[in-house]
């Protein structure tokens, strides 16, 4: 097989296998940083050997066998760690060496647990949000440091540093490789969901740079979200999050005009919405509902997205339901941004005055002083009420506040209307 082709195959194998590999190794060596190094060593070995030998029949088991061998070498070199060598030795004896057949039984018995532990350690609250995001993409998403840096428009050394420090922090604080106890599971899961949604949002509405969307990040987040929903199938919020992402992503093709400018929800060509993703989102919401628990923030947001997803035309949108869902959401997550969304829903359901009353109250809040969507929404409501001059001022103000070039252009256009 030509080298380039093999390298592409290795990239693919890495994307499929790396999370399981690192998860399994972390359980054995009790150190996520070391586990990742060992996995990387195995990857280097594959890059050296597979162009000659071809991709083995069971590449995952091959990589694991190499990584384990490296682990033993390393521990033997550090003779002080005798105890761990014995542990791994025992572990090796009880595990089958790679055969041609993938051993799904072995995978089933413990890989899911290890993956879940890896999810929780990557999103551990001792780490900063930025560190959690980088570590999650690296360890669970199988992204390289370079890919993460490109996605977040951050210099590669910054991301590399962030990952190194995160691994060091986990080691220094002796964070155990475990699924949190039931009493703290809710809070810890919220931290995981937040990281995944943050990645999605960075792709869905890029906060900086020229492009309004970076689809690859959305895809990475959705893959993580789907994985997560299967790892914790009894957690309605995990289904809520993936439902929310699937339904939002269903609109990605319609959100941008051919020249790259953003198209707002009500102006979108709904024939371009991806019906497969909408169906998947609705199915995920059904799974959440079947668990018969009160709706959490992600389920509520997904229910709102579903109201749009179901509407064939903007006029078909069930705005009163959306306003009611926002009212429940703002009770769970008191936030002026959600209140602003509720104002929009109310204006759609009952007229611009109903929305403007809430928006005017929000303009007093210092926390929204530099939030571009507030003047943007206010401008829209004022325009609908025929108050053109006030509307123009608001659009101009919104344009001066946004960091996204495309969005700024759209707002300036509205100001000139």
């Amino acid at each position, binding site marked *: 097989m030509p080298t380039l082709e093999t390298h592409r*195959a290795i990239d693919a194998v890495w994307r499929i296998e790396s999370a399981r590999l690192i998860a399994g190794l972390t359980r054995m060596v009790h150190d996520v940083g070391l586990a990742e190094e060992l996995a990387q060593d195995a990857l280097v070995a594959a890059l050296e050997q597979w162009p000659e030998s071809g991709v083995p029949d069971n590449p995952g088991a091959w990589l694991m066998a190499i990584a384990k061998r490296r682990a033993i070498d390393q521990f033997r070199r550090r003779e002080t760690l005798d105890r761990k060598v014995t542990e791994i030795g025992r572990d090796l004896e009880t595990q089958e060496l790679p055969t041609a057949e993938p051993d799904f039984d072995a995978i089933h018995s413990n890989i899911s647990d290890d993956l879940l532990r890896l999810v929780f350690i990557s999103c551990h609250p001792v780490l900063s949000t930025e560190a959690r995001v980088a570590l999650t993409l690296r360890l669970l998403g199988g992204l390289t440091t370079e890919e993460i840096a490109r996605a977040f428009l951050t210099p590669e050394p910054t991301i590399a540093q962030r990952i190194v420090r995160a691994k060091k922090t986990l080691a220094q604080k002796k964070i155990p490789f475990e699924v949190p106890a039931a009493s703290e599971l809710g809070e810890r899961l919220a931290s995981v969901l937040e990281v995944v949604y943050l990645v999605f949002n960075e792709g869905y509405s890029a906060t900086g740079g020229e492009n309004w969307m970076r689809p690859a990040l959305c895809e990475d987040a959705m893959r993580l979200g789907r*994985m997560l929903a*299967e790892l914790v199938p009894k957690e309605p919020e995990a289904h809520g999050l993936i439902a929310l992402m699937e339904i939002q992503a269903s609109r990605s*093709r319609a959100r941008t005009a051919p020249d790259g400018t953003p198209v707002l929800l009500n102006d979108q*060509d709904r*024939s*371009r919405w991806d*019906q497969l993703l909408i169906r998947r989102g609705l199915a995920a919401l059904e799974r959440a509902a079947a668990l018969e628990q009160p709706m959490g923030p992600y389920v509520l947001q997904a229910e709102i997205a579903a109201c749009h997803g179901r509407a064939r035309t903007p006029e078909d949108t069930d705005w009163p339901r959306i306003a009611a869902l926002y009212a429940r959401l703002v009770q769970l997550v008191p936030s002026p941004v959600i209140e602003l969304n509720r104002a929009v829903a109310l204006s759609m359901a009952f007229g611009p005055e109903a929305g403007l009353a809430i928006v005017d109250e929000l303009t007093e809040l210092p926390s929204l002083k530099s939030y571009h969507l507030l003047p943007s929404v206010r401008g829209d409501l004022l325009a609908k009420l025929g108050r053109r001059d006030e509307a123009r001022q608001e659009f101009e103000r919104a344009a001066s506040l946004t960091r996204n070039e495309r969005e700024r252009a759209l707002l300036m256009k509205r100001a000139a209307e």
Partner: protein
Amino acid sequence: MRFMVMIKSDERADSGVMPTEEELTAMGRYNEELVKAGVMLAGEGLHPSAKGARVKFTDGKPTVIDGPFAEAKELIAGFWLLDVKSKEEAIEWVKRVPCTDGAEVNIEIRQVFEADDFGEAFTPELREQDAQLRLAEQNGS
């Protein structure tokens, strides 16, 4: 990117011989792996061609031909719709399909067109039609 992965039939399968329990279990596990990895968007197995039909257009006129059809090896027995990073990743997943009975099995991997791939030929009107169809399908079921 999305790939349609089609597993081809053979005389035995198309004559209506059901897979063994063992084969079904192995396939079930494989599908579970795909779902757990977050790459499977959809997937179904198909009845033998005896239960299907073909519609052939000659000079714009449709003729209906009932199954079964010859050349079982060219028929599709089932499909997956995968959402993966590259064609190579689709291939790696397909190499893991459990095909253990020793017979020859053919699986075809094809990239799915997105509306944007059609360029100008896919006019807004066509898109509209396409979506109405999909909406009708969604709400009808």
